[in-house]
């Protein structure tokens, strides 16, 4: 056993080191280095990392690129927001409205009673379950419909993108039920606990960190299992996997659902930390941005995805503060550079250029820290 996996152990160990570094960075270094304002920003970025990790699973390793992850991020966020909004819209807080006790945006749209599908969100447990379940179910429907019919590659990407667009238009158009383009704003307390205070922000940040690390380990467990290798196999030689007797579609559906669930959790943490949710995270642009985070960090590496997310967002904030008019140039340039020059992102640079110089043993390969360039699934 140990003899057999001797070679593969190294990237595994490598990955664990990466995990440790990430943990130290986000749990110890950043909280000490940054004031609460900046830290809260980092917390916001970390919520995107949930999505990026999901993309590592379904894009990096399985070769199915979803341009609709914002959809699931948004759904998770909205489920959380629904609960918080209902709590914030107590009769006492909303007596100025013509119908007290319902969210303000409903009142503005002449809705006089809480819609039935809002009612369950009065319960926190329901909301928390919904945060994970709603994205997963939707992902399952999309995945089952598409993968069973062997829709892959580009077609999958474009269809998921269209789905994201549909949901955006729906949310904006049905503002009586969704808050429209303003989103669901002015969220205050979670079970009476004010989430806007600095103290709360600290706590939420650490909750987010813990969940993120948890997600990283889940992803790692999946990738390290035989299932992980089947995913890679599917990406490279889908036919051969089929002719080894596997039902490829089921694996794709599974990984897509998993990624979506992760995105949902990210969305919920986003809502809690930022204090509102709006359709601008459901649409196409944020969805693609998240893919970019993942690509920059390295589409095959969990650690890379987190690092990439932090890096890109940090750069984005810095740039847009320093030269507002120029940051799009920088972003665009970065994307192109990464895709063309470093298809495996930071992680690739790390394992290919830097580590071999640092360490004696060479040529890491394997499912964990890095992997060879993915050849995208054939468009059928």
């Amino acid at each position, binding site marked *: 056993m140990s003899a057999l996996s001797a070679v593969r152990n190294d990237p595994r160990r490598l990955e664990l080191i990466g995990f440790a570094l990430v943990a130290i960075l986000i749990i110890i270094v950043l909280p000490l280095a940054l004031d609460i304002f900046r830290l809260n920003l980092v917390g916001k970025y970390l919520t995107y990392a949930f999505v990026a990790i999901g993309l590592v699973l379904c894009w990096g390793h399985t070769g199915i690129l979803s341009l609709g992850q914002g959809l699931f991020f948004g759904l998770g966020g909205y489920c959380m927001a629904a609960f918080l909004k209902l709590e914030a819209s107590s009769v006492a807080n909303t007596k100025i409205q013509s119908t007290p006790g319902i969210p303000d945006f409903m009142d*503005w749209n002449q809705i006089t009673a809480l819609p039935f599908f809002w009612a369950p969100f009065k319960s926190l447990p329901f909301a928390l379950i919904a945060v994970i379940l709603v994205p997963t179910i939707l992902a399952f429907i999309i995945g089952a419909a598409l993968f069973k019919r062997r829709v892959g590659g580009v077609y999958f990407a474009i269809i998921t993108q269209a789905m994201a667009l549909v949901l955006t238009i729906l949310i904006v158009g049905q503002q009586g039920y969704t808050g429209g383009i303003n989103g669901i704003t002015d969220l205050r307390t979670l079970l009476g606990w004010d989430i806007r205070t600095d103290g709360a922000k600290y706590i939420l940040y650490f909750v987010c960190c813990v969940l993120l690390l948890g997600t990283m380990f889940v992803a790692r467990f999946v990738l390290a299992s035989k299932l992980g290798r089947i995913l890679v196999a599917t990406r490279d030689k889908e036919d051969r996997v089929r002719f080894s007797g596997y039902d490829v579609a089921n694996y794709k559906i599974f990984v897509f659902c998993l990624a979506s669930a992760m995105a949902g959790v990210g969305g919920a943490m986003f809502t809690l930390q930022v204090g509102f949710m709006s359709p601008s995270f459901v649409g196409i642009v944020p969805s693609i941005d998240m893919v970019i985070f993942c690509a920059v960090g390295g589409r095959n590496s969990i650690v890379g995805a987190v690092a990439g997310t932090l890096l890109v967002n940090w750069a984005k904030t810095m740039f847009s503060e320093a030269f507002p008019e120029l940051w799009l140039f920088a972003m665009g340039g970065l994307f192109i550079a990464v895709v063309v020059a470093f298809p495996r992102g930071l992680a690739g640079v790390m394992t290919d250029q830097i580590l071999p110089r640092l360490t004696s043993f060479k040529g890491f390969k394997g499912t964990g820290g890095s992997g060879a360039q993915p050849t995208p699934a054939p468009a059928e």
Partner: protein
Amino acid sequence: MSSEKPTGNLLVPTRRQLLAGAATLSATAMLPNLARADVPLTSAVNTTGLAVTDTEVTVGILHSVTGTMAISETGSVEAEKLAIDQINAQGGVLGRKIKFIQEDGASDWPTFAEKAKKLLVQDKCAAVMGCWTSASRKAVLPVFEQYNGMLYYPTFYEGLEQSKNVIYTGQEATQQILAGLNWVEKEKGAKTFYLLGSDYIWPRTSNKIARKHIENVLKLKVVGEEYFPLGSTQFNSVINKMKLVKPDVIYAIIVGGSNVAFYKQLKAAGIDLTKQTLMTISVTEDEILGIGGENIVGAYACMKYFQSLDNPNNKAFVPAFKKMWGEKTVIGDVTQAAYLGPWLWKLTAEKAGSFDIDKIAAASPGVEFKGAPEGYVRIHENHHLWSKTRVGRARLDGQYDVIYETAELMEPNPFPKGYQ
């Protein structure tokens, strides 16, 4: 691409440098000021740790310079910088020069919230001039209330809001809508209205108010109401519908890029706005730049300010604006409202004798600005402005002829009874 760039754009940075230069110049010129006795002590005017020194006070400018909203918000940024420049040239506020920190909201609401927080928490801005869309205001409002900042918000908007920490320098819906409707009813003998809007809160709320006023107050008829996704460019279907029901008045609250498509398609469909009455509350001179005067000539707009307004304040304001930002620039309602922000804040600060947010908020009601390009404004207890409402008629050159203005100042009424 770069080869085809016309050179006009290169002026933008140049202008900015000029401005910076001007600011520093005036700053040095006024240095003697500081020696003057009547400059109150910092400790006196700033008890809450805002960014106020003996010579400077910092304010924030928070608009979208990138993204889809940059189209609309550019004008506001320019106006606010002009106002700050002029105030500094007059010696600043409470003897202190205004220094501004500009942040980009990037047309993205959370970014607005993020930057607002930065301006308040990190930069300790004594006031922030900013936001444009309702969405961005909704996003920053909790931030301003939590960290107790002061926001001067320039856009005409849907109302239904009132905050200690916000001064709304634009009109709320009823101010902008009611007078206009009364006018078309009286002047045009309008009986039937067709309401159009982009699909979000402001047009929907405004149309709701318009409908209530038309049906309950004027006892007239609304024959259609339609909404289109933001950025939609296909209006042929609704134009066909309107051709059939032939409303006396088309009441359009379409925003952004959709405007261009809408008015071009109207014209192409042979609907001549010099014959068919159309009233809008969303098309300022800024939008006409994109629409093209020839496509909208004859349409009526109902708001509180037009560039062509004939009064001494405006006669001074327009040239000053053009001098700073170039002859080509136009000034719309929101741009003017944005210009009011810094002035109102200055006046309030001097009335309160302090930069403290609470004192500013308390002192605001009753503050009047006689130098307003729109003529005269006064802050209401509800932190909105008393202002006149005017109706303009679009000209071929993209300007409006002001053909009506309310005799009295309209009272701001963000929570209009009977209209909700």
